[in-house]
């Protein structure tokens, strides 16, 4: 599958440990540099997971506020980007549980998440069915499929972000795809013809 995402590592003018040290010392410019290096990717991930611009914005803010407040605990075992994306996934998962509990069950998702018309060549009905099927996946499968197939993270990166073994990540992706195929199965024959 073609990778559509960008690599986790972001080019740095200043070394990451130096930037972190400066942020810990209260350097506002360093904090902004760190934000500039990672915010677009964090927002992108948050949006992919929520499908809502306001929520993605709020969760991106929460991610960075939490990251800055806990930066002293970052030990550098993984890349800073991995650590940030781990916070993002956690923030989104926790908040979305509350959001889903609150939202009306009968709310038509199409009112909230209009499906774009880009990506010619795919039947719109099938596309809509697939999008709904992705949204309906259990959280662990949905996160894996969005990170791997939609955002282009590698299994190694996803495993680090989610804190699971790489094999677990592959297994989840396989399960997720099987569920998606099953949902689309009834539409497949006519589309194949």
């Amino acid at each position, binding site marked *: *599958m*073609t990778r*559509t995402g960008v690599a986790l590592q972001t080019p740095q003018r200043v070394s990451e440990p130096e930037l972190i040290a400066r942020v810990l010392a*209260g350097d*506002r410019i360093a*904090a*902004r540099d760190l*934000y*500039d290096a990672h*915010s*677009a990717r964090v*927002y*992108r991930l948050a*949006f*992919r997971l*929520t*499908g809502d*611009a*306001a929520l*993605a*914005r*709020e969760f*991106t*803010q929460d991610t*960075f*506020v939490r990251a*800055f*407040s806990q930066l002293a605990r970052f030990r550098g075992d993984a890349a800073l980007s991995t650590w940030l994306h781990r916070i993002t996934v956690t923030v989104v998962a926790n908040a979305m549980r*509350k*959001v889903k509990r*609150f*939202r*009306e069950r009968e*709310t038509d998702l199409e*009112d909230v*998440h209009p*499906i*774009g018309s*880009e*990506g010619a*060549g*795919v039947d719109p009905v*099938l*596309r809509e069915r*697939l*999008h709904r099927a*992705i949204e309906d996946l259990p959280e662990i499968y949905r996160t894996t499929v*969005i990170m791997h*197939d*939609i*955002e*282009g993270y590698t299994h190694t990166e996803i495993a680090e972000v989610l804190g699971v073994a790489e094999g677990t990540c592959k297994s989840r992706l396989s399960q997720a*795809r099987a569920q*998606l*195929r099953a949902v*689309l*199965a009834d539409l*497949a024959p006519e*589309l*194949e013809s």
Partner: protein
Amino acid sequence: MSEDRFDKLMRDAAQTFHSPPEPPLEEMWAEIEARSGFRAAPTIESVTPITAAPRRGIRIPSWFAAAATLVIGIGIGRASNSVGHETQPKAPVTVAQAEPAQSTQSSDTLLDRPYAIETSQYLGQTAALLTSLSSDAKGASADAQLSTRASDLLARTRLLMDSPAANEPAMRDLLEDLELVLAQVVRLRSNGTRTDLDIINRALEQRDVIPRLRTAVADISAN
């Protein structure tokens, strides 16, 4: 469905599923900077007067005001604690240290009062805002002033969620619901539609938010 067909669909999904818009980087940074305490100390040039009146004034952020209220409340509680003990014979310091459990219990009871006052005021103001929101549903969508009030209340909600005021499960549930509602009201400022307002109002009704608010205010007042 063939592997190729499915892969083609997933490639399409990579382009079309929750396709992210341009991130509002500057707006997000402003919020992060303020919440993280990176903002530089205000200079005379950067201070914004509260009104256009010639009177000099420093604009106090809402979160600071709420935090200050809580801190002042704690101070009042501690002062009340001291005053209460003055009516009784003074015990040597060593005795107080020898009975920490009793001392702590007394202090906690008094410390709850400022939180109760702050919570009561907050709940009353939130009830007023949400009630006005319900009536606005019949007319136009929320205006910027409403959104600003909601933003202030949202900041106070989060402070209270991290305070002893949220220790009680029912209050915590209420604060969590209010956090979500107020966040949605704030959203109305930028991209709000009649549909959004309707969704908020339906959610308010389904979760019985306003009746629960009034009950909470009454409970606090009764205590």
